[in-house]
């Protein structure tokens, strides 16, 4: 591992810590759906950083990237289709 990579990984780590602080901070200032949106958005950015740098997706191409996109797509299916239920439960008959 050369010096550049180490510096980059440390940099990403600080970025993750910064985002963690932001999440905690946001939970004090925001309420309700806004709080939810903020923490979900930040979690998404953190996951992307981990995928891209720590899990070396930046160095892969083709199939491994496709597999990673697949995993995220499946999570979207889980959440999206569940919301066909949660979002429409209140509708009248």
């Amino acid at each position, binding site marked *: 591992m050369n010096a550049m990579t180490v510096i980059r990984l440390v940099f990403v780590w600080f970025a993750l810590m910064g985002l963690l602080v932001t999440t905690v901070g946001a939970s004090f200032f925001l309420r309700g759906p806004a709080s939810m949106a903020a923490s979900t958005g930040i979690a998404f950015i953190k996951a992307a950083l981990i995928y891209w740098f720590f899990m070396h997706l930046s160095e892969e191409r083709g*199939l491994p990237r496709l597999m990673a996109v*697949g*995993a995220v797509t*499946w999570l979207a*299916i*889980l959440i999206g*289709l*569940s919301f*066909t*239920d*949660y*979002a*429409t*439960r209140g*509708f009248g*008959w």
Partner: protein
Amino acid sequence: MTNALDAPDPHNAGISETRAERESYLRAGHTLRSWLLTTDHKRIAILYLISVTLFFFIGGAAAALIRADLVTPGGDLLTNEGYNRAFTIHGVIMVWFFLIPSIPTTFGNFLLPLMIGARDVAFPRLNLLSWYIFVIGGLITVYALIAGGVDTGWTFYTPLSSFFANGHVVLVAVAVFIAGFSSILTGLNFIVTVHKLRAPGMTWRHLPLFVWSHYATSLILVLATPVLAITLALIAAERLFGLGIFDPALGGDPLLFQHLFWFYSHPAVYIMVLPAMGVVSELVAASARKPVFGYAFVAGSSIAIAIIGFLVWGHHMFVAGQSMYASTVFSFLSLVVAVPSAIKVYNWTATLHKGRIALDPPFFFAASFIGLFVIGGLTGLALAMLAIDVHVHDTYFVVAHFHYIMVGGTVSAYFGALHYWWPKMIGRKYPLVWGRLSAAAIFFGFNLTFFPQFILGYLGMPRRYHVYDPPFQVLHVLSSAGASILAVAYLMPAFYLFYSLRYGDPAGRNPWGVTGLEWTVPSPPPKHNFMETPIVTELPYDYHVEREGEQ
């Protein structure tokens, strides 16, 4: 075709009569250690074969208790608690320790490398690790069973499982959680194997359909199993620490559990049936001695099932309080998922059409699969209708539906695979008459057990109750009678297959005279499968088609 290699050697009678047998993977070390530390995919397959057979018997014993209790309307054999524990342990063992691992870990492990011309799977040591993980999960389950059991049903529905059940819920959840990692590792191993280890010329278009269906199954294993693990962990968190995830009093939602559970468990039913479909494609082509009709569609439908199978889970929640708009979406998608399954059935039938069908045991089992799967699948469509489901939800109709697919379908295919590849795995032939007889007995016993349950359910007999209205007794007695026939029929192969182990004639490389790379190596295969890497030039199922009446 007789081969000089396969000729009996008069000086070495007994278990290893032929040179092929003396060089086989079965002879590469005789100590227990050589088995327990093996990384050979063929030996690991045998380890799995032994373990899943054991679990099949444990799950079967629980089923016997259930059926015996249901002979009388009073529930005279077991206590209420005991009955709940019996069907829970039956479901947990059969789903996670028999049906899900059964075909992939035994025949998949044994055959995948052989079918694509590889020496082993991509990660042989990981393969052994996944067996150990599986066994640990199984042992914990058996321990929980001895220590008193669980009464939640295999579905672990909240709030019963998180607050009210007083059995070893967390212990069994941990066991299933652990076994899940074995599934994930096997899935990963198969995906990488198929991508990376194909022999020269073995393009995707050349893959046997068994490999295609295992590839599709592996995708589901990797994508769905983590969600089960998370769901079980959440139950444990709620039960042990009172975290409000599923309990409304704490701000949770009990339906969230069902969403998460069925997001895994509907795809999981395809984990159980897709490998069986792969087996049936092989058996049908081999019995008819014809190329599979519409190869690309049969292969593609496996992938389609793997994907669409993830979009239908809400059909388990129609009457659970799910929004009716969501139910409508899930009902529609459930009809869509039946299309690729139907494609397979039509194409198998078209493959058999005008074939010169060999009436050997593998064909008997394949034919059972097709017929019973059609009944199971069509009743699935009926259950996916919103109005019908209100009437039959949580009745014996549902129980009959999924047993037609999982037992009539998958278990038949499992036995079909056993009868087809046994000579390859062991190197010996078994008496075909007995194979045909047990296939027929299984088919008969199965239908007598489960057909009455469709009627029972339609008439209103709820599932998971052991005290019932006396007019239902006739149908329950028929079902229990069928179950005892089925039990005997499932035990029959044990006798003649063990017999063949010692007294069967040597099978030779290709006893059925069929295509496929696994039939080009000696039986049993040598430790490293191929003397030299095969080069594939022919398409799969490359039979010279000679239709009846055309000679």
